[in-house]
């Protein structure tokens, strides 16, 4: 037997039009299935309507705060572990690079030794050339500049040195550091 649309009407939350209501009533008089379903739904509906809100055991907020603190600690621990792992990873990478470099150096030690000797010799040659230039130009320059100018230059340099020392001391004083 077809129970539509009666089943739909039985569970409808909106009020039925008068005509539908009468048709449903007539159907319920002769249909055991729909009548039983209607009776069962009434029982369920009443149980659902009567069911109260269930409350948690008292102290819910305190337990939640404890859980939040645990979560925060766990998160901090996780972050520390991630940081540690990252640092370890970077250190490992640097170590690997160092090992590779050392291996490369060991395999071509002769070339590196000659390279350094060449650099030292070049630097020595540059210093010697500078020395020659200085010994030939500086005496001429000293003779060219009159004595009062030298006194002025030395005085200015001394004054600048004192100023620099005073400023340096001022910067390192505790009050300045706190600010």
């Amino acid at each position, binding site marked *: 037997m077809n129970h539509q649309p009666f*089943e*739909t009407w039985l*569970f409808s*939350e909106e009020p039925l039009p008068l005509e539908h209501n009468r048709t449903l009533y007539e159907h319920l008089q002769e249909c055991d299935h729909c009548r*039983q*379903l*209607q009776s*069962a*739904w009434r*029982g*369920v509906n*009443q*149980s*659902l*309507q*009567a*069911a*109260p*809100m*269930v*409350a*948690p*055991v008292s102290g*819910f*907020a305190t*337990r*939640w*705060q404890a*859980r*939040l603190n645990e*979560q925060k600690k766990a998160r901090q621990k996780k972050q520390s572990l991630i940081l540690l792992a990252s640092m370890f990873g970077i250190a490992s990478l640097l170590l690997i690079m160092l090992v590779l470099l050392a291996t490369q150096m060991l395999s071509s030690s002769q070339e590196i030794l000659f390279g350094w000797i060449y650099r030292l010799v070049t630097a020595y040659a540059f210093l010697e050339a500078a020395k020659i230039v200085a010994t030939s130009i500086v005496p001429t320059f000293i003779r060219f500049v009159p004595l009062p100018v030298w006194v002025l230059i030395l005085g200015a340099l001394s004054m600048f040195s004192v100023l620099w020392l005073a400023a340096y001391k001022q910067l390192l004083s505790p009050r300045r550091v706190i600010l």
Partner: protein
Amino acid sequence: LRPEPIFILKINAPDPKAGGRIIRSNFVSENELEWLHKAQKGDVEAFTHLLDTYEKPVFNLCYRMLGDGYEAEDAAQETFLRAYNGLNRYDTQRPFSSWLLSIAAHYCIDQIRRRRISTVSYDEIPYLDPPDRTLGPEASFVREEDQQHVQKLLANLGTQDRAAVIMRYWYDMSYEEIGETLSLTVSAVKSRLHRAKKELAQLQLQYGYQSASLERTHHESPAF
């Protein structure tokens, strides 16, 4: 300018006619708005005030969904943790209660799918609500039996259907609100509710359970 009134659940004013259930108000108290703003800035104390207000509806939803007090406690705690951690994503124009219940419902649905909690024996479920001292021992027993029966019926529904029924019956939510909370369309909510009701009625017939309180009302002599 006053903010637009939004719907929110007010458990501080339970309606005695509705069996101690929450009633709905279309105004958010200024305190709650203040707590929300403070909580969004990381104030745990302010969030605790919100938690005090909403612990019962959230716990009830979890309990009705999962059918176990311990699981419900865990789910409710997790719901509030997720809400606290995600407060910056919360839109204050949306009802806070709906947002919270949405988190709880989705979490419970996930838990049911993951743990297959529906296999829990419902004979062992303790009734967590404190016993009503105004009820006699017989009435308390009948009430507890009814509750176990309700949980047994709910446990047989699909997770989404169960959530829709709970939201409709315990929270008086409209189809639109249920749809928003469960990420469903209004027509899908209507269809699910209709299917769930039919299923519940068929289960009632199958179990042949007759509530003693209901039976009593049937056999009571009419009041003249």
